């Protein structure tokens, strides 16, 4: 049913339609509205016999999910930012044990400086945790991909993160056709666990594995993720046949045929990017767009095939590997290795910095002229950085930079105001 609805509420309704049996909830901005919505539905008796647990931490949340999923219950939780870091030991454990938990990540920056706004630092920190990571571009996809996530997790016996940009999606009221119960039931069969703790057939889970078998276990984790490269598009096609919507899949291209430049990105910025690129094409630029929807497993071959005709690829991402550069850019470069394609790395939108059509257009105009430095920090206030670097050089005990930069910007604002 079409609704004008908050992204978090749409996700909560979609998850409820998946008939979860155990939900562990711990509040952290910006995912909190999702578990609030689910808690309310569970309390009203709208989610069958689902158990909703208010746990004491994110570490507790993921640990409860581990116990529950290992006992054969369909299990869900959500987190963001510091919460992801706090549960990280259990995040690795869930995938290592092959437990099909679904977790929404309301993508948010990691501090310090403390910042509640959107970037991808949290799910990128879990990049190598052997979870499947699906990114969504809008709230319709957010709702739809959760339904596919349970199907995928249970088919592959792997946990799945659905990554949606915090605030930009979680708190946005948009039109969403929340997947209806009847079709969700058609799409998502009852959970048949690959393994379960059951007194009738006792098993030992979580044994110690030494050097004699560890490499093989890790190889299998890799192999199983690569198998998901087949499952994800198959599920997306089935979903489309049933619901009439294109959601999910490995990647999505927009107008890339015969284009010399292709922008590669993920998540909610795809919408803004589409509109900027349409303008640029109107102005004569040969430029298209590719959205990565499955970040892990990374669709290397599909990406290579899609981009084979491009001369130039500009990777725009809200994540930074300090001391290295773009994270997504590194993956794209690996996928395009040995092809004669220039790959530019652009890092923007960190900590919720607005990404506007104007500033994207300025950056991309430089990009198509091959004028971007490596890596390019989008919308960076270079003057502020220079002043802080000078201060760090000149003062004996300069103190923390975050506070100093805030003071600098506040001062500059005050000067600007007084001169008005």
């Amino acid at each position, binding site marked *: 049913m079409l609704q004008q609805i908050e992204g978090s509420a749409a996700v909560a309704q979609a998850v409820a339609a998946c008939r979860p049996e*155990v939900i562990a909830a711990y509040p952290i901005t910006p995912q909190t509205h999702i578990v609030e919505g689910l808690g309310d539905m569970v309390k009203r008796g709208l989610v069958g*016999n689902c158990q909703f647990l208010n746990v004491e931490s994110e570490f507790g949340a993921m640990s409860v999910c*581990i*116990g*529950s999923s290992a006992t054969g*219950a369909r299990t869900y939780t959500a987190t963001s930012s510091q919460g992801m870091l706090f549960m990280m030991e259990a995040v690795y454990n869930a995938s290592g044990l092959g437990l099909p938990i679904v977790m929404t990540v309301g993508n948010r920056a990691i501090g310090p400086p403390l910042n509640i706004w959107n970037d991808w630092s949290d799910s990128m920190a879990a990049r190598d945790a052997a979870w499947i990571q699906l990114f969504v571009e809008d709230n319709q996809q957010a709702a739809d991909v959760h339904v596919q996530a349970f199907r995928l997790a249970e088919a592959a016996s792997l946990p799945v993160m659905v990554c949606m940009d915090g605030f930009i999606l979680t708190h946005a009221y948009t039109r969403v056709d929340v997947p209806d119960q009847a079709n969700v039931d058609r799409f998502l069969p009852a959970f048949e666990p690959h393994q379960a*703790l*059951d007194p009738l057939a006792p098993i030992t889970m979580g044994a110690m*594995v030494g050097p004699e078998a560890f490499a093989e276990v890790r190889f299998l984790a890799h192999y199983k993720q690569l198998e998901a490269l087949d499952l994800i598009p198959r599920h997306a096609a089935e979903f489309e046949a049933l619901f009439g919507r294109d959601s999910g899949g490995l990647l999505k291209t927009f107008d890339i045929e015969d284009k010399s430049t292709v922008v590669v990105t993920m998540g909610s910025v795809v919408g803004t990017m589409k509109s900027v690129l349409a303008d640029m094409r109107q102005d004569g630029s040969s430029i298209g767009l590719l959205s990565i929807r499955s970040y892990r497993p990374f669709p290397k071959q599909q990406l290579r095939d899609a981009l084979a005709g491009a001369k130039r690829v500009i990777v725009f991402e809200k994540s930074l590997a300090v001391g290295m550069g773009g994270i997504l850019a590194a993956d794209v470069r690996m996928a395009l290795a040995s092809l004669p394609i220039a790959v530019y790395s652009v890092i923007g939108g960190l900590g919720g910095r607005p990404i506007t059509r104007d500033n994207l257009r300025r950056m991309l105009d430089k990009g198509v002229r091959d004028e971007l430095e490596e890596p390019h920090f989008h919308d960076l206030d270079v003057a502020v950085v220079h002043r802080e670097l000078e201060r760090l050089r000149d003062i004996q005990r300069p103190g923390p930079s975050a506070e100093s930069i805030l003071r600098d910007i506040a001062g500059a604002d005050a000067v600007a105001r007084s001169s008005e």
Partner: protein
Amino acid sequence: MTKGPDSEQRVKFYQTGTFTVGNRLLNEAQRTVQASVERANSLDSGHRACQGCGEALGARYVVDAALRATNDQLIAANATGCLEVFTTPYPESAWRLPWIHSLFGNAPAVGTGIAAALRARGREDVRVIAQGGDGGTTDIGMGCLSGMFDRNDDVLYVCYNNQAYMNTGVQRSSQTPPAARTATTTVAGSDPGNELNTGKSVPLIAMAHGIAYVATASVHDLHDLEYKVVKAMSFHGARYLEVFVPCPLGWGSRPADTIKVARLATQCGMFPLFEAEYGELTASTRIRERKPVEDYLKLQRRFAHVFALENAHQLEALRAIAERNIRRFDLLADGEDTA
């Protein structure tokens, strides 16, 4: 003798310090079955525990008793630690019940998740225990443990307390007694061993949560241990059992003395045995024949330095702990000398 309702274990024998003689005096139904070949072993032989391991003995009796109490409808979550490592050197597993090891600090929460899944699936006939050592329980697992108590999740948590991190090589935990030597509280300086005035009582913390049942037990009294497990399984909601399990390797005691050391710990007042329901103390095991704290300490090399003249204040501090336990838990039988 145990105060309070005690229908299953009315008869206890202290004549020999063992149950061997007493067993013959009992009628068939009441006899202990610890030596029978028919006896079930949830924790199978062949595991890799050290000689004289108190934890292996404790865990075997706890899990067996819990299995009997639940008609074998039991799932166990296990923290990382000795018990986990010595029981599951894969491809071998000593466990004969569904068992999961996840992490060091999350066994209570994994137990919660199992219980929640069983409730969601209408399988509340299946019960849950979670277990770990004192490090996994009272230090790194404390947050998850308190959360499990707070939510009153239907899990019996069993802490096998051997008073240090034994699996990593005998480092101090919050359960390491004052003055005790560990690898991180060495015998050096003016206060050798563990610092005085440190540590915490997790059974009392558990009681402060108001949970259904809290008890302490020891491997020197397996009947009492089994009785407390069975009693714990008669409650629903969160429950906590702490079992005193000597570690010959970590304590520097003889493997053959494990039971003796455990018994002396109780007899001198260093490890009080008690039960509590819904936050109220309901029973404590009286000391029939009080022993000096020194008798307990001198069997363990971790305390050897407290007998040096210059460390007399440490010995005094340990005596004071025993005194306080005796007062607090009313441990002396009527007429017993309080000196």
